């Protein structure tokens, strides 16, 4: 048994070094690794039996999709989830008027796996009335209110020629995508060494394209919480490449380009969970994985334990810093766990008691380079919905909210709003602070790649650690967002199914 253990540990060391050999396949390994000094297993213990073929950690889209595929292939699967709800980054705020989506919102016509699952489970998709966010913005730049119609001729407009018609909230997506070197390439091209030269700070990339400093500053308003200098250009180039890849080429049969789940996107993870033979267990915060003799023991914060022959782990990579692995994770994978980060977005939801925009005669929605970034009166999805508004902060300004309680966030947002827009004072009623990061289970909205990380980590994200297989949006190859989650769950499930 001891020999097996040693071989096993060597296997893990190999796996972490990027060789992705399975634990049980290491007889050729010659190198003694430091971790082989770990204590031998307690031979007094009876052999541990797996309670399930596969334990799936995380009941978001990736974990649930993997669980469904594994079950269809005959595996006995148990899904466990840290939060007291399903869905992860799909979360319909059912208690907020108008039931806004707090995270994953639009289902693109190209979201093949997601659409297929929605249809299979008998859910309905629709295009809500009013569509996306189509009220015009009132820009507040350097303290000046600027209407969209005045922007082209305004002295604070940093662009030249025809570009002056480009509105500030479109700067980041439009200018980043110009001459995108990934255009025309397959969706996995971003992983190829030929594009590593773009794994540099995004602001640096833009300067090399002749974009001026004020334009870069305005692009920085709504980029991830890391800001332009901490975001790899290839992260942004990939983002817009994926966005544009199928636009104009793939649409729903009714000609629309996106839809939502009728009744709220949260109905999808609920239906996925409901289709499984074993009901997912909620409130199971995973704190450790321990693999012995091909069985992985999963320990939860409430003291409960699960044992599986395989694990599918959809925990966001930065949250894995709080999870222990035995044998240890080392090498590139460990560096990725320690260094990768997620964008942070904070939403402060309000009920609008009186239409403040009627009081001051300006557009209701604000896009600002100040501390609140965006404040939007939500488009009503049903005529009976009351007016509701969201302060939505996702750029570098969002980091400070990590230091605040929900009440403090409300206090701060109300104070800054009243300074910028006095008519909002007393016009708003607090509803809820929402962020996918404001509990121990979430990391943020999307993973973002810092300069140099694509080259270093991007091809290691999918390596298994013994019998633990990783999925989640951060491990996706071709897609991003919700479809990226599905793609990753499919890949992780196939890793198990095809190696059986």
């Amino acid at each position, binding site marked *: 048994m001891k020999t097996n253990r040693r071989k096993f540990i060597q296997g893990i060391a190999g796996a972490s070094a990027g060789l992705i050999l399975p634990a049980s396949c290491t007889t050729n390994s010659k190198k003694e690794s430091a971790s082989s000094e770990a204590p031998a297993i307690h031979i007094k213990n009876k052999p541990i039996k797996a309670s399930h073929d596969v334990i799936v950690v995380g009941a978001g889209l990736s974990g649930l999709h993997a669980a469904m595929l594994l079950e269809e292939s005959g595996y006995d699967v148990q899904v466990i989830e840290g939060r007291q709800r399903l869905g992860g980054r799909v979360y319909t705020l059912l208690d907020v008027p108008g039931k806004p989506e707090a995270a994953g919102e639009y289902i693109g016509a*190209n979201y093949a796996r997601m*659409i297929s699952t929605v249809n299979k489970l008998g859910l309905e998709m629709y295009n809500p009335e009013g569509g996306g966010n189509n009220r015009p913005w009132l820009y507040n730049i350097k303290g000046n209110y600027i209407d969209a119609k005045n922007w082209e001729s305004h002295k604070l407009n940093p662009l030249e020629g025809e570009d002056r018609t480009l509105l500030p909230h479109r700067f980041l997506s439009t200018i980043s995508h110009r001459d995108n070197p990934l255009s025309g390439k397959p969706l996995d091209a971003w992983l190829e060494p030929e594009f590593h030269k773009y794994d540099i700070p995004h602001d640096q990339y833009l300067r090399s394209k002749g974009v001026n400093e004020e334009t870069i500053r305005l692009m920085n308003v709504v980029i991830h919480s890391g800001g332009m200098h901490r975001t790899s250009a290839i992260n942004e180039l990939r983002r817009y490449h994926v966005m544009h890849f199928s636009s104009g080429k793939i649409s729903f049969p009714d000609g629309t380009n996106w839809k939502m789940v009728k009744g709220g996107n949260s109905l999808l993870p609920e239906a996925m969970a409901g289709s499984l033979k074993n009901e997912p267990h909620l409130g199971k915060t995973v704190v450790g994985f321990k693999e012995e003799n091909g069985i992985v023991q999963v320990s939860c914060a409430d003291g409960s334990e699960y044992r599986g022959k395989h694990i599918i782990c959809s925990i966001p990579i930065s949250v894995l810093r709080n999870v222990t692995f035995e044998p240890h994770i080392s090498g590139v994978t460990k560096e990725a766990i320690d260094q990768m980060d997620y964008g942070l977005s904070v939403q402060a939801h309000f009920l609008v008691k009186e239409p403040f925009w009627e009081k001051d005669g300006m557009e209701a929605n604000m896009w600002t380079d100040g501390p609140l970034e965006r404040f939007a009166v939500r488009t009503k999805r049903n005529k009976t919905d009351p007016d509701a508004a969201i302060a939505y902060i996702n750029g570098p300004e969002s980091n400070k909210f990590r230091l605040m309680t929900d009440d403090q966030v409300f206090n701060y947002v109300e104070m800054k709003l009243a300074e910028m827009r006095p008519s909002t004072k007393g016009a708003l009623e607090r509803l809820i602070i929402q962020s996918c990061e404001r509990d121990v289970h979430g990391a943020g909205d999307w993973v973002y790649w810092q300069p140099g990380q694509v080259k270093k980590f991007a091809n290691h994200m999918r390596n298994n650690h013994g019998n633990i297989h990783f999925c989640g949006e951060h491990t996706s190859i*071709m897609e991003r967002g919700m479809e990226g989650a*599905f793609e990753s769950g499919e890949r992780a499930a196939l890793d198990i199914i095809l*190696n059986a």
Partner: protein
Amino acid sequence: MITLKTKNKKLNLKTSKIFYPLFLLTFLLISSCGQKEKKEEPTFNIKTESKTTPIAETNSDKTQNTNVLGKRMFIACAACHNLKKGEAHKVGPNLYGIFGKKSATTEGFEYSEALKASGITWSEETIRKWMQDPAGYVPQTKMAFVGIKKEEQQTALIEYLKEETKIEE
């Protein structure tokens, strides 16, 4: 299969030995899960057919396609493609009767300009090239697929597709 391209070939042989008991167990589970009762804990309201449909009685088993690897490989395709006559197009076209067909000619599906212009006739050989790297074979295709790199997996999937897309007599 996506990450497998970097894996050592020895891996499969060894893991298949080691997982042979798992295979058996899986088989037993498949054959017994028809009787498996779900605990009565109705937290989730939406019930679906897949919960009560025993795996041993799904359609593809009725056709007695014994190509297990091919069937498993098709998991990577199923989100986009139906195979049977009369089934809807999904994000990708229905592949009924695909072998011997000219590319981009199935009615009711909007193909990319690139595939329309490709002049490909789908044969074992061309389908193999396509499933290995669609965008490498036909640049600018709108099929977003990472590709199947292992030859035995390609072969199994081709055999599976041949059987499942066969034109009904």
